[in-house]
């Protein structure tokens, strides 16, 4: 806020610092989730609202919860407003974008005729998006890799959510990640399918690989289910969301751990007890795909010929790559054996941990 002269008043800085406070623990006076929600929805009677406000005025925790709810609500309102934008306004932006995309498609098609799939992948890379694999199989390794993490995820174990409020206090929370087996047969089909990725966490669709197959570790961008539009919970909008995300999840066949990889060399690992931590990848390029034959061995590829590998599940080393092209897929069956695929569809295999590569 500025004063009458338009200058920033020191009082504003002081207030920001003076009022900065970490949220405290729940007190008996704190509102439960439903009261907070009802207050936000303005569904409360005046007396109840007034009573709660007397508490909210001095409770940093409740204020923070209300602020989070307000942000989420405003976000939803903005999203709805965006979706109601008149078509002619959207097209004002979309037409140049489509023209640019079309130019790229034409250029690639002229260079590599007859390979529409690769074109789509290259465009997606150019837009910093994860390319989705179309229904047709890519000219790639047998056991593909990686699923986009923005896919609808399975219910996962609550991570680091200490007790609070009536829910937390009264309800023991699930300790472990829900597994498909834990769900009864009466569980809804969609939820069972969502939970079929144990530990978590993203839907990991094994195109062409049997679960538990030693060669699996490998999934591919997007998924067969998304690509084919196969089934219930996975909708076209999910596929679009997947394509728009750069976040990729990688799990070994036993699903004991999960790596999340993405932009700027980001690698995070979630271990079996649900704890997630960031790992030093040693690279700063965008990472696009990965394959984990086991909880200790993982291969990750990315843009500009980036290949990194871990053989202990914790530390990463840069692997000499056969090309500086963008990689979009990798499959691996061990610490030494892997096949990487470029956005242009070229594949290279190694059987000595990346010391040498052979075009496929």
């Amino acid at each position, binding site marked *: 806020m500025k004063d009458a002269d338009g200058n920033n008043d020191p009082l504003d800085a002081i207030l920001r610092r003076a009022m900065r406070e970490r949220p405290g623990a729940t007190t008996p006076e704190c509102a439960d989730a439903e009261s907070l929600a009802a207050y936000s929805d303005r569904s409360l009677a005046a007396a109840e609202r007034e009573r709660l406000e007397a508490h909210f005025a001095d409770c940093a925790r409740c204020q923070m919860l209300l602020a989070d709810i307000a942000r989420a609500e405003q976000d939803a309102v903005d999203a709805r407003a965006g979706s109601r934008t008149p078509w002619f306004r959207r097209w004002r932006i979309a037409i140049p974008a489509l023209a640019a995309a079309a130019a790229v498609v034409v250029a690639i098609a002229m260079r590599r005729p007859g390979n529409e799939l690769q074109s789509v992948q290259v465009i997606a890379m150019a837009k910093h998006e994860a390319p989705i694999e179309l229904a047709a199989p890519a000219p790639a390794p047998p056991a593909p890799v990686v699923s986009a993490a923005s896919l609808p995820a399975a219910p996962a174990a609550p991570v680091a959510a200490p007790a609070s409020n009536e829910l937390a206090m009264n309800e023991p929370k699930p300790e472990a990640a829900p597994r498909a087996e834990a769900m009864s047969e009466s569980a809804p089909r969609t939820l069972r399918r969502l939970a079929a990725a144990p530990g978590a966490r993203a839907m990991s669709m094994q195109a062409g690989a049997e679960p538990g197959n030693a060669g699996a570790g490998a999934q591919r961008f997007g998924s067969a289910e998304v690509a084919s539009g196969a089934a219930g919970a996975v909708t076209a909008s999910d596929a679009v969301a997947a394509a728009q995300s750069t976040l990729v999840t990688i799990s070994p066949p036993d699903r004991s751990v999960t790596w*999340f990889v993405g932009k700027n060399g980001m690698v995070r690992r979630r271990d079996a007890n649900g704890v997630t931590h960031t790992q030093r990848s040693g690279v700063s390029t965008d990472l696009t795909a990965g394959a984990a034959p086991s909880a200790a061995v993982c291969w990750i590829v990315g843009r500009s010929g980036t290949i990194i590998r871990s053989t202990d599940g914790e530390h990463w080393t840069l692997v000499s790559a056969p090309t500086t092209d963008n990689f979009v897929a990798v499959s691996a069956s061990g610490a030494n054996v892997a096949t990487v695929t470029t956005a242009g569809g070229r594949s290279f295999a190694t059987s000595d941990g990346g010391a040498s590569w052979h075009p496929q």
Partner: protein
Amino acid sequence: MSEAPPEFFAQHAPALARLCERARAARWNVSEESIREAAWRGTRAAGVLDRAGVDSFLDALHAEDLSLAIACQAGESAPWEHFITSFRPALYAAARAIAGDEVRSRELADSLWAEMYGLEVRDGRRRSILSYFHGRSSIMTWMRAVLAQRHVDYIRSQSRMEPIDDSLERTLMSGRDDRTDSPGSDSDRARYVAMLGKALDAALKSLAPRDRMRMAYYYRHDLSLKEIGRLMDEHESTVSRRLARTRDGLKREIERTLRDGDKLSHDQIRLCYDFAAGDLQLDLSRALPDVK
């Protein structure tokens, strides 16, 4: 076996009938008895006692969301399909808005799905946190509230692990900043900041609760005027006007205290502001133990 006293159903029969009609419970094969039982539990949880209050309470319930929640707790396939299709994108969007970080937001949302499905089985029944939803708000807002609770708990658990700056702690204990030996750190500085802190504390406490809330949303939680307005049921321009008025009043009150109580001159008051705003590296909130 019904937990509710029979007189509850008898006394509020018309309101319960309206509730059942609005709930469209047959759509999910939810019995009217289940709706009435849920209404009783909600009434009890909200602590509504008087007869007229109960009727108003029942009429204000989000009946359709309540019947959907009851159906989902039963684990039926069709309501779950509907629930997932209707709310999953919004739930993930809410988690992103609350947590910010993509990975963390997915964990948050996934975790809530698990809790809503209720994987823990007790006495042969799954325990779902949906049983805590009584229809007092829309189910989407309730999910946002639970996400927010989980997120705040997570922040608290993380902040417990942050190292404490020992020198700052010593500073607060001793009342002066011993980290700096610069010529600017004169002995009056800590005294000036302490006086301003005390005056600010008193001024904040004298505000009306809604004024304190508005200030907190703006200065502490960085909400936009629009978001504050939505939360407090005020127009954006009203929020802006009231914030400015409160802040000006606060300033007047602080300066009055410093001038009349602490006998500071205009220049000394200016120094208080300057020291507190810029010079000190310590977190002023820790110097104001009573200000929440």
